[in-house]
């Protein structure tokens, strides 16, 4: 092995008094950090191989293991931090682009943590969701300008033909995670959880595995620049179709599933040869303008005979509001916005960490712009990019989103430990891998239960918070920014978010 200047990122410590040499850690680590030496009957560790996924720590039957951040530090330097120095070493050693997985981990402001919610006191009553009805049902899709109803013999009938809608039990949808980037078991868990719970999941751009067609009515399928696995049956099977233009983790660049992850099953689902790189070019080569986007939106609507809403997903960038306006006018029924903290299976670190804008600001500016132009009802806003809790969700709704996409939270629910090495395909938690040995670690039934538990917990919390505000339907909170106040924000941040400072 080539000599490296890189110190191990983690230190793995084994308590030898506790260790029973069962070798569970040896088998569990796909990076071969642990080794068993039969001759001397000891388990040794090479900390430089540790990625910090904590799989061994969790599985060790005697709690003999501790994984710590390596406390060794470079000489203190506010400018040349250890992270910066190590990245330069890595690049000097390999000459390559730094890769990473999951979402931006840099300390940009998280505006959710600077917004607080309102609650009813004295002058208006709060509502107890345990004893009173509380509606979280959300419909995504184009809404009519006005409703034309007629009443005959006391019976009301609707004359307006409604555009197709997605019906969500609560405003949370599993975001695009492609099969190939994640394992079949992980895809299946997401699909079945969405199906049973009554929400949707998104296939990402990796096609739809034939065994998942049965969840079709709870599936949003993607059509991205690489067109992987996109064909008539795929479009027909879904409840909605999403054109993927961009992704928050890597705005402006395409996708690249390395050939070693294109296993037999992945190849059949993406409909490409086994072992070949799956390249999604950065642009759709037929989309160079809003007019061109309109053409693809309508090509998809025509191909599915206007039965399904069409979503268009973009990364949140500086001029998202203007772009979103164009998207709505191009015929998008759902505008999916993915902020700078959005996750990914693989992205160049420098792009993930430096390109795009926080989703909070994007929601506020897009919602505002569409309202000003009088077209907000023509499309729903589906926001993505680092939603961590029910309070993030409810604040997003109050800011102006119709619903949110969760990706990372869903993976964490399934067992992801945010080690950010998804791009290696060796996820020890059986999530971001195609290795059959690793994939088996994720039981799709258990993972489905965990996902549903998370949704149920958030559902209950959202009801509690809504009740506290004296609101009994999530509809009434949407874009209701008076229920938010800012804490520790500058005047311009408050202005963009369209909220008042706390205390006013």
């Amino acid at each position, binding site marked *: 092995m080539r000599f490296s200047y890189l110190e191990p990122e983690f230190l793995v410590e084994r308590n030898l008094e506790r260790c029973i040499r069962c070798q569970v850690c040896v088998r569990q680590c796909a990076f071969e950090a642990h080794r068993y030496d039969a001759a001397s009957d000891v388990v040794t560790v090479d900390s430089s191989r540790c990625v910090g996924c904590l799989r061994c720590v969790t599985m060790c039957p005697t709690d003999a293991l501790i994984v710590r951040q390596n406390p060794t530090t470079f000489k203190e330097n506010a400018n040349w931090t250890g992270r910066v120095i190590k990245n330069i070493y890595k690049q000097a050693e390999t*000459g390559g682009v730094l890769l990473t997985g999951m979402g931006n981990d840099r300390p940009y402001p998280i505006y959710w943590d600077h917004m607080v919610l309102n609650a009813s006191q004295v002058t208006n009553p709060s509502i107890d969701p345990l004893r009173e009805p509380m509606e979280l049902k959300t419909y995504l899709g184009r809404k009519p300008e006005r409703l034309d109803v007629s009443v005959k013999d006391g019976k009301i009938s609707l004359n307006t033909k409604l555009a197709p809608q997605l019906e969500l039990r609560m405003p949370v949808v599993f975001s695009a995670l492609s099969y190939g980037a994640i394992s079949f078991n992980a895809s299946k868990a997401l699909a079945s959880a969405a199906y049973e719970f009554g929400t949707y999941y998104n296939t990402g751009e990796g096609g739809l595995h034939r065994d998942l067609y049965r969840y079709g009515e709870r599936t949003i399928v993607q059509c991205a620049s690489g067109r992987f696995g996109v064909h*008539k049956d795929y479009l027909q099977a879904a409840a909605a179709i999403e054109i993927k233009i961009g992704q928050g983790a890597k705005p402006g660049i395409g996708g690249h599933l390395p050939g070693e992850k294109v296993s037999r099953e992945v190849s059949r689902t993406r409909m490409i040869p086994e072992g070949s790189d799956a390249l999604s070019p950065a642009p759709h*080569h037929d989309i160079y303008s809003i007019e061109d986007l309109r053409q693809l939106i309508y*090509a998809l609507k025509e191909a*599915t005979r206007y039965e399904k809403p069409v979503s268009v997903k973009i990364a949140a960038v500086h001029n998202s509001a203007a772009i979103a306006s164009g998207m709505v006018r191009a015929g998008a029924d759902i505008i999916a916005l993915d902020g700078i903290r959005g996750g990914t299976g693989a992205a160049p670190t420098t792009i993930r960490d430096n390109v795009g804008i926080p989703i909070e600001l994007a929601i506020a500016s897009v919602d505002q712009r569409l309202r000003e132009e009088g077209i907000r009802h023509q499309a729903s806003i589906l926001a993505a990019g680092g939603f961590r809790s029910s309070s993030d969700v409810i604040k997003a709704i109050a800011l102006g989103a119709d619903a949110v996409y969760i990706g990372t939270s869903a993976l964490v629910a399934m067992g992801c430990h945010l080690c950010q090495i998804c791009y290696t395909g060796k996820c020890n938690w059986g999530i971001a891998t195609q290795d059959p040995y690793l994939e088996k670690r994720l039981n799709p039934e258990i993972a489905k239960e965990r996902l549903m538990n998370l949704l149920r917990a958030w559902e209950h919390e959202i009801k509690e918070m809504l009740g506290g505000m004296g609101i009994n339907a999530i509809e009434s909170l949407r874009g209701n920014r008076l229920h938010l106040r800012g804490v520790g924000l500058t005047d311009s941040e408050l202005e963009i978010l369209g909220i008042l400072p706390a205390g006013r």
Partner: protein
Amino acid sequence: MRISAKGLHYRTLNEKIHHLVDSGAKSLHVTHVNGQRYIGGGLQGDIRLTLEGVPGNDLAAFMDGPRIRVKGNAQDGVANTMNAGEVIIDGNAGDVLGYGMRGGRVFIRGSVGYRVGIHMKSFEKQVPVMVVGGSARDFLGEYQAGGIILVLGLGLAPGEPIAGYMVGTGMHGGVMYVRGKVEDWQIGREVKIFELDEADYKTMRPHLRAFARAFRLDLDEIMAEPFLKMIPYSKRPYGRIYAY
């Protein structure tokens, strides 16, 4: 069955076609086609469509099986993500022809525009084939991942190029055959120009025979001129750019 597209919005026309197909029509002859988009979009089954006039963009997009004959020119986006079937165009076609096309074949008697055959791909027994009678412009076969692109250069004026710049940029699968001259400066870094061998002629022949038959051309005459072939260096053009 004959229908007229005169004065019809694409949505009305396409709904009519879907409706007729749903009620069992196997063969439709559409006259007065004038720019209507998405004809044959998402259509499945063993159906024949004959179009008289100029169909609009995204003809045969997401199509899966039917055969379309265009008695005229076609516009942009023909056979976008087409899975199976056939499109035969008597005239010229525009840009982004066969984007992401995965199966079936497209024959164009005349010439085609820019970004043709982008991201064409093959899969198991599905090998898409595109034969262009005339010439193609820049970015031919960009990101091509599979399938066969043939450009014949029939009827070009002396000195008129058969292809533009950036041919096969990012190509990582499939093959392109060009009946004429393409210079190194016209092609992308990921492809290389080769002479044809026996196997190549065997691959091309059935498609060229079908092309010749479709347009009543002489196969031997087509085969008489020299071809060259372009294939990518590797299936993994970008395999080595990452640190770890």
